[in-house]
């Protein structure tokens, strides 16, 4: 549905995007992760035909963004970073204007407006001026605008910013429901969001893609060792050394809390059974034993730090050779 090939965008001397390629299949939800200034918004602006790329091609639903912008624009719903609302209009006036711009009219327009007002819970504010609404409501009006013409492709720049936790969950549910029938690209700073809604994550830093995979695969790929957390009720003095003696355990750390140990183990080796048996037979009083998986947050930090040259020991398979610091 979306194909981006070798896109480069330069602003004068500054290269904002450097040979970025990725694609989104029909019905897929893709998350764009990256620190500020990484090029997320620039990529979205190119896809929505707001600005042309310096080099490379971007295609949406088979239409080239540079050659057939009207066809592309008709098929895209776009929510920019700042919700594009007119403060002097009421919610319904605004949505009617948006619908007319996109060629909706009559019963179709009314039905579409009603659907989005209901879907985004705007019923109680539909006759109020947007200028008097809170940030969260404006964000929802912005989303309603993007969804109004039921586009095949949705491009959402930080869709959950400014919403309260309950609304965030609702919007995530909404995006999940859209998956399948719509292709969605969303950018976010909030990492659990990417794990919660997206099938695939693209991590972008300094204008280039540093990793692209499913959230689970990304954390698996970056995991260099398995970590296990172990909590004991009454550890003895030799617990440390005896834990270390278990085959597969590389290192044992005692964490701040007494009775809690962190075990670093060989990759691909599950030592939990062994450790549990040891704890029980030694009478240490096993309270808790769990594997710690790397969160996407760790992956993100490691990858983007890697770009800055702070943690050079991490290897990412799909990334091109690391470039200059950001």
């Amino acid at each position: 549905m979306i194909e981006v090939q070798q896109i480069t965008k330069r602003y004068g001397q500054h290269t904002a995007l450097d040979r970025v390629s990725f694609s989104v299949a029909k019905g897929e939800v893709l998350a764009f992760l990256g620190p500020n200034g990484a090029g997320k918004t620039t990529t979205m602006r190119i896809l929505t035909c707001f600005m042309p790329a310096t080099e490379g091609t971007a295609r949406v639903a088979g239409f080239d963004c540079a050659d057939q912008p009207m066809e592309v624009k008709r098929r895209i719903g776009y929510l920019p970073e700042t919700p594009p609302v007119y403060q002097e209009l009421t919610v319904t006036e605004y949505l009617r204007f948006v619908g007319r711009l996109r060629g909706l009219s009559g019963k179709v327009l009314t039905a579409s407006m009603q659907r989005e007002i209901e879907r985004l819970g705007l019923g109680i504010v539909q006759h109020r001026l947007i200028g008097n609404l809170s940030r969260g409501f404006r964000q929802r009006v912005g989303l309603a605008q993007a969804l109004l013409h039921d586009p095949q492709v949705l491009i959402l720049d930080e869709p959950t910013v400014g919403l309260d936790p309950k609304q965030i969950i609702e919007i995530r549910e909404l995006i999940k429901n859209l998956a399948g029938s719509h292709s969605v690209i969303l950018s976010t700073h909030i990492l659990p969001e990417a794990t919660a809604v997206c099938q695939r994550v693209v991590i972008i830093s300094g204008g280039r893609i540093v990793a692209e995979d499913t959230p689970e695969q990304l954390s698996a790929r970056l995991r260099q060792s398995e970590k296990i957390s172990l909590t004991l009720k009454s550890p003895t003095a030799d617990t440390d050394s005896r834990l270390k003696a278990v085959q597969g355990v590389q290192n044992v750390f005692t964490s701040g809390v007494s009775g809690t140990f962190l075990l670093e183990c060989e990759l691909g080796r599950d030592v939990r059974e062994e450790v549990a048996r040891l704890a029980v037979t030694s009478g240490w009083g096993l309270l808790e034993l769990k594997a710690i998986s790397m969160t996407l947050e760790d992956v993100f930090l490691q990858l983007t730090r890697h770009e800055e040259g702070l943690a050079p020991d991490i290897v990412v398979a799909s990334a091109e050779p690391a470039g200059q610091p950001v």
Partner: protein
Amino acid sequence: MTPVQAIIAKELRSYFVSPVVYAVGSVFLLTVGLLAYLYVVFAGAQAIQLMQVQGSAQLNLNDLVFRNLFASTRFILLIILPILTMRLFAEERKLRTFEFLLTSPVGINEIVAGKFLSVFLVFLGLLGLTGLMPLMLALFSDFDWYPVLTGYLGLILLGALFLSVGVLASALTENQIVAAFVSIGLLLVLWLLAGLGSLLGDTAIGQAVSYLSFMEHYDHLVRGLIDTKDLVYFFSSLALMLFLSHRVVDSARWK
């Protein structure tokens, strides 16, 4: 409803919920009304003088009232129309709705046309209200309607030109005050070209410079003269300004 109509409807709505139209409109109508009153009073005083000297007076309201009034209104429009146009694009850029507008399936020419037509309609409405003044005068006096109507045609064409310059200035910046000043500045330069032209005299360059200014073209219409040359001037300059606005809006995407 076409996209252009949708934009016009939205812009009109925005104009009339904000206080700008009311402030600009009342200043415009108040000054034009006051000037008309003064010119009529002066004409009356002159008539009394003539009566005392000659015993009778033939008053020409076209010369004494309307020509003066059309000449003054020109200056009022130069000040107030940029206030009406300044928000058109500058506000969109400031409030980040510009990106939304340009990613909608609407051509830039439709956007420029919609914005221009909306403010043009507001202007026509204000100008229409001044029509009460000649209608009232017609109740009490006799004058030639023809130059009054061509004068109004002149005001409409002049207003359209001023508004298109304002649209261009508004597209250039995201600051409304700057937009207003830029268009007032551009219009003053256009105005003063007439002076420069007459300074250069009856040479080819002098005539060309005078032609560029709206002054002589507007004067012809106020005097009741409809010349194709003047109409060509107004329509071509309007088209040029709207075309330049289109280019500026288009190039704003690249930044």
